[in-house]
């Protein structure tokens, strides 16, 4: 199984833990990842809020690199995944956009590179039976609130990732690992995304609501697959506690970090030390220190 792996900019900075755990997990499962040489930013939210053609051309620069590799592209960052798939859709359905992208890149691109999310690779290509066979530790009933956020599931017509209102992909993985995936109402609520710095008040309000529901559901941790969700929920917890007098201490872990632990990989290799809210309760439950 070989894929072109697009890490995305966060993977080199605030989501190094996501990147580290992703690479460790795929290695343990025998999946081969190759980075497209010279990959560049997808434009993220700032791109599409600024200019439609810019928002199509920046992903296309990477999609053409993957086209040359003759592989499917796999992405773990929900935001990059979203931008790549939207660009593919727009380019293949609007000749004017395809022409605009051609002018910007000095190369024609038809929007045909297959873009997949890492979760899809795990569930569809590797499959739960194979993952089950590779598990060395159990989540031992850890209560996990699976949080999908926006960009993994919306717009559903283009992304076609799971059910847009009640997705279950992450929950399936948690259950397979012996965890208890919680039924809770904020799976696809917005964390405020890219407003983290420019409208911190909005992000604090939205993440506060999500943490409140996770806490009410009895979550030991929240599992995510998006660097923006992770940073907003993790980093803003102390702001929320300060502003509301609550005392949330809910670790926000990447699903790949949980899977890595269960595949027998050490927390150091999975970037656990980078979490702002320490996942001590998670590591204890999984009995990481036991041989």
């Amino acid at each position: 199984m070989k894929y072109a792996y697009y890490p995305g900019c966060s993977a080199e900075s605030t989501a190094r833990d996501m990147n580290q755990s992703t690479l460790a997990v795929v290695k343990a499962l025998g999946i081969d990842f190759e980075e497209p040489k010279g990959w560049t930013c997808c434009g993220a939210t700032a791109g599409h809020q600024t200019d439609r053609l810019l928002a199509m051309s920046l992903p296309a620069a990477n999609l053409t690199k993957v086209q040359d590799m003759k592989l499917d592209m796999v992405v773990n960052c929900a935001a990059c995944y979203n931008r790549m798939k939207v660009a593919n859709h727009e380019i293949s359905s609007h000749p004017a956009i395809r022409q605009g992208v051609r002018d910007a890149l000095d190369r024609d691109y038809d929007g045909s590179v297959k873009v997949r999310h890492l979760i899809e690779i795990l569930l569809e290509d590797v499959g739960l039976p194979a993952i089950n066979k590779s598990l060395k530790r159990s989540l031992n009933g850890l209560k996990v609130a699976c949080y999908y956020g926006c960009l993994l599931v919306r717009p559903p017509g283009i992304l076609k990732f799971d059910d847009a209102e009640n997705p279950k992909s992450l929950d399936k993985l948690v259950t397979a690992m012996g965890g208890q995936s919680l039924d809770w109402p904020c799976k696809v609520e917005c964390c405020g995304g890219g407003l983290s710095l420019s409208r911190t008040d909005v992000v604090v309000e939205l993440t506060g609501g999500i943490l409140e529901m996770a806490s009410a559901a009895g979550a030991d941790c929240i599992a995510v697959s998006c660097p923006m969700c992770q940073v907003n929920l993790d980093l803003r917890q102390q702001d929320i506690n300060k502003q509301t007098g609550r005392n949330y201490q809910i670790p926000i872990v990447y699903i790949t970090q949980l899977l890595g632990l269960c595949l027998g990989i050490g927390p150091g290799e999975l970037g656990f030390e980078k979490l702002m809210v320490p996942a001590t309760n998670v590591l204890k439950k999984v009995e990481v220190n036991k041989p």
Partner: protein
Amino acid sequence: MITIKKNKNSRALKDAVELLSGVDLRVCFQCKKCSSGCPVGKLAKTRPSEIMRSLHLGAGDELLATDLVWMCASCETCSTRCPMGIDVAAVIDALRRLAIERGAPKPEGNVPLFNRAFLKTVETFGRSYEIGMITAYKLGTGKLMNDTEKFPAMLKKGKIALLPPRGGDKKTVKRIFKKIKESRGPKA
């Protein structure tokens, strides 16, 4: 609430939004599902359905100054739930683009400045550079020390990269930015 000023620009705004977003605004029948699901709607003075209706009624550039235009988090819940399949989020994107082009009043929090700071690092390094972007944004807002108390811990934990990214195909990205600027004309 949006107060609509009837003037000669009114038609131009509706047409410009339709052109930029590719959305047929006429099909909205005001069911308000977009507003019900909007996560920032409860915090903003305006709701998405109100923006849609204001465009119907011939709103002009005053619409570009409504707070939701820059408070919208681009979560796309509105577009996902619209029974008529309207990409409401694309309408908001179009309004943002017009707000920049037509020099609408600067909103609270200054998302346009943030977006410029973000894209500038992409243009320079080929990949986004968080510390460079944060510095440029804070210099622009003049509130340098806001929200900086977390940096020491983030750096210590390795949760944020100190140095700019390397290895990105800067040549292609620079070309893209140059071409986009050319296509948008000297005003952008």
